[in-house]
């Protein structure tokens, strides 16, 4: 008689084969041929880079690598743990709707289904291992053991993340508040430790660039510190295995220890899952007995909230230009979301603001403004899009609805992008304003950079959405496509920044050579602002074109 695990293994294999075939078909589709080509070029370049360029670099110290691997996992876990405690609604084990119905509804133990869920992270762990091994192979003697150690560590990391998520879902409100305070304190301690390490390894009065370069070493030192290493004990066997110099009996022990931790983690997941379910039900029963629930009609609650929303809509309509009144409804919808997540959004921008202003602490006047502007640019391009995922990127499941709205493409784009862009510009001008008050860089710098960075915000969100509409993906999608997409996007953005800086330098040089000093300044400032805004406007037009081209019958990605 076959066991449930065998049936679930069969299910996993069938789904994997189906997905591989489907991925191959999608890659060959004419609508995705450009993305497929870029992905293939990237993978080839990455592998070639790994073999020919990374292989010739100076190798890292093995002990440091070991501490990085184990400590790095813990730092990543702390980040996810903080995110998790501050998330309002926890998803039950991240099951899909089909898994919730057919697996949770089948005569299977919850532990069996939990094991199946852990298996589904194996493929994404395998992919991450592939990319990491290529980068780290020159630092170790046995690439196979490196791959095994990294793979096991990543699977353990994902399992512990699920354990934490389930634990949080079972906590009462009082304990949840306690968990939020505790995790925030731990995160703050890590951040303070990072800055302390950075200050200790960087000579005083160094250029801000040195601080940036030393930040990676500082993170490494945080990962290596005793506190983090104690938390990283479960990852120690995998880290030791990955960095093995000589294969001895210890290697076998490390291998067994690292692999044995996985079923222990799954068992912990099952126990905590059972506890959480019992705790949630017990709280429900207490609440029912105490009568602490809403007894009136939902219409009363609806009327209260609805009148506030009406006022907000009227206010937005009064602020928008008449030509763009079509977009009011979309902007109003964004405003409701922003109101709901205002705390998260404020926090998401508070930390980058502090980081961008950190060059003010270095004591050197000359380059501080440049580094602050560079920091704002990087935050705009890299941090703002994921923090303000309020545009087309969150509406993949509602594309049919959006398509049905009587809006011209450009109005739909403006409706979706207005508020995220305005929030980003708010962050930019706040940071610039504080820096300007301290440094006093002059009107040309403030006006010039204020104007250009605003255009950068528009350009960034327009490009992100254009790419999303051309090659849509689900919010929590994992897999080779997403890994390649993330890397290609990062490289693309870095190239863009470098090209923009180069173009700006060329423009300044041209202006200075053609115009004399009093005139050249306003010419290059307003010329640069106008040029960047022309690019930003073009990006918006491209996004509108992508939205017009979007085909809900062909472009929607599978689950």
């Amino acid at each position, binding site marked *: *008689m*076959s066991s*449930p695990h065998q*049936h679930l293994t*069969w*299910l996993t294999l*069938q*789904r994997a084969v*189906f*997905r591989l075939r*489907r991925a191959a078909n999608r890659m060959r589709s004419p609508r995705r041929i450009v993305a497929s080509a870029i992905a293939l070029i990237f993978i080839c370049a990455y592998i070639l880079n790994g073999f020919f360029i990374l292989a010739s670099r100076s190798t890292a110290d093995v002990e440091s690598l070991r501490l990085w691997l184990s400590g790095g996992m813990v730092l990543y876990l702390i980040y996810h743990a903080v995110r998790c405690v501050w998330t309002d609604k926890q998803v039950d084990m991240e099951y*899909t*709707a*089909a898994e*919730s*119905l*057919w697996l*949770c*509804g*089948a*005569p*299977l*133990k*919850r532990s069996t289904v939990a094991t199946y869920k852990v298996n589904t992270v194996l493929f994404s762990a395998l992919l991450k291992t592939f990319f990491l091994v290529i980068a780290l192979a020159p630092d170790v003697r046995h690439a196979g053991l490196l791959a095994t150690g990294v793979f096991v560590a990543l699977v353990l990391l994902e399992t512990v993340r699920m354990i934490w998520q389930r634990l949080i879902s079972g906590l009462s409100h009082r304990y949840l508040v306690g968990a939020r305070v505790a995790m925030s304190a731990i995160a703050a301690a890590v951040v303070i430790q990072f800055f302390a390490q950075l200050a200790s390894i960087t000579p005083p009065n160094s250029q801000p660039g040195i601080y940036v370069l030393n930040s990676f070493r500082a993170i490494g030192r945080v990962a290596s510190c005793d506190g983090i290493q104690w938390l990283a004990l479960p990852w120690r066997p995998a880290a030791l295995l990955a960095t093995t110099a000589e294969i001895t009996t210890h290697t076998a022990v490390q291998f067994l220890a690292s692999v044995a931790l996985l079923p222990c983690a799954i068992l912990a997941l099952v126990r905590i899952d059972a506890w959480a*379910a*019992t705790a949630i*039900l017990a709280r*429900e*029963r207490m*609440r*029912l007995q105490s009568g*602490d*629930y*809403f*007894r009136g009609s*939902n219409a009363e609650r609806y009327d209260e909230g609805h009148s506030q929303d009406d006022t907000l809509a009227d206010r937005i309509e009064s602020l928008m230009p008449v030509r763009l009144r079509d977009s009011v409804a979309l902007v109003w919808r964004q405003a409701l979301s922003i109101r709901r997540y205002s705390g998260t959004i404020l926090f998401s921008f508070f930390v980058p603001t502090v980081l961008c202003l950190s060059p003010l602490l270095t004591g050197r006047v000359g380059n501080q403004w440049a580094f602050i502007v560079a920091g704002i640019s990087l935050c705009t391009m890299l941090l703002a899009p994921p923090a303000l995922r309020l545009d087309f990127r969150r509406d993949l499941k509602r594309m049919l609805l959006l398509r049905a709205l009587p809006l011209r493409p450009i109005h739909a784009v403006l409706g979706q992008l207005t508020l995220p862009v305005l929030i980003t510009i708010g962050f930019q001008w706040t940071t610039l304003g504080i820096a300007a008050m301290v440094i006093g860089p002059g009107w040309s710098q403030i006006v010039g950079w204020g104007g250009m960075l605003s255009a950068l915000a528009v350009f960034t969100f327009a490009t992100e959405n254009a790419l999303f509409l051309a090659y849509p993906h689900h919010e929590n999608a994992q897999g080779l496509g997403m890994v390649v997409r993330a890397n290609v996007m990062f490289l693309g953005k870095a190239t863009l920044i470098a090209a923009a800086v180069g173009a700006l330098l060329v423009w300044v040089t041209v202006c200075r050579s053609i115009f004399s000093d009093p005139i050249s300044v306003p010419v290059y400032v307003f010329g640069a602002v106008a040029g960047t805004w022309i690019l930003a406007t073009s990006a918006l037009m491209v996004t509108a074109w992508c939205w017009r081209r979007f085909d809900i019958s062909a472009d929607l990605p*599978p*689950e």
Partner: protein
Amino acid sequence: MLSCDGLRKLYEDHLAVDGVSFSLDPGNIGGLVGPNGAGKTTTMRCLAGLIPATDGTLQVAGCDLSDGGSNSLMELKRRLAYVPDDPPLFDDLTVGQHLEFIGRIYGVDDHRRKSTELLDYFQLRDKINAGATTLSRGMRQKLAICCAYLYDPAVLLLDEPMTGLDPPGIRRLLESIKNRAAAGATVIISSHLLAMIQDVCSHLIVMQHGKLKYFGDVNHLRTQFPNSKSLEEAYFEATNTLAAV
């Protein structure tokens, strides 16, 4: 056999089901009806063991769900099939693979022959190798029903099963429900299409605002409202009368 006594379910601060009690014997077909948001789906999910009841006792297919024991739940799942409204399917399995998976998990003897018969009955045979994403709404519904029928459950809970089905599909579904009830299964159909289910249901369970408004024999409802020519008219009279009280 299905018995529900004082069922209550609280979501956060919203009491979705408030003291619902009814029971059905093998061979009975219960029509679970009520306005939108009445608590019908929550009741079915509690009966199916997918969500725990906050209060009340549930005896379904010989399993007592009140103790929350995992053994009772496992046994219940072997004997019960729940088909939700717009059933989600695995996007990365074909029609045939869905039935293969159900056949394996439930340990159905000769599941491939039974799958073929069910696919023929519901006119899905030519879609056996089609991916779930390529199916229309009605086809997905039919596939979910085939999966539910495959292991011959003692209790069938169908939430809006006719939504999306073509007329032949509706006729075949209703015939199959009657046949299964005649063979001893207990069936609950939640539907707004009263005209369609009136010839099939033996009992009516009327819910409104989470409460049970009427439970009883369909004929008894008609005798209570003798001027009503159909079940639908009797339902409207019943809910209007009860709402006015």
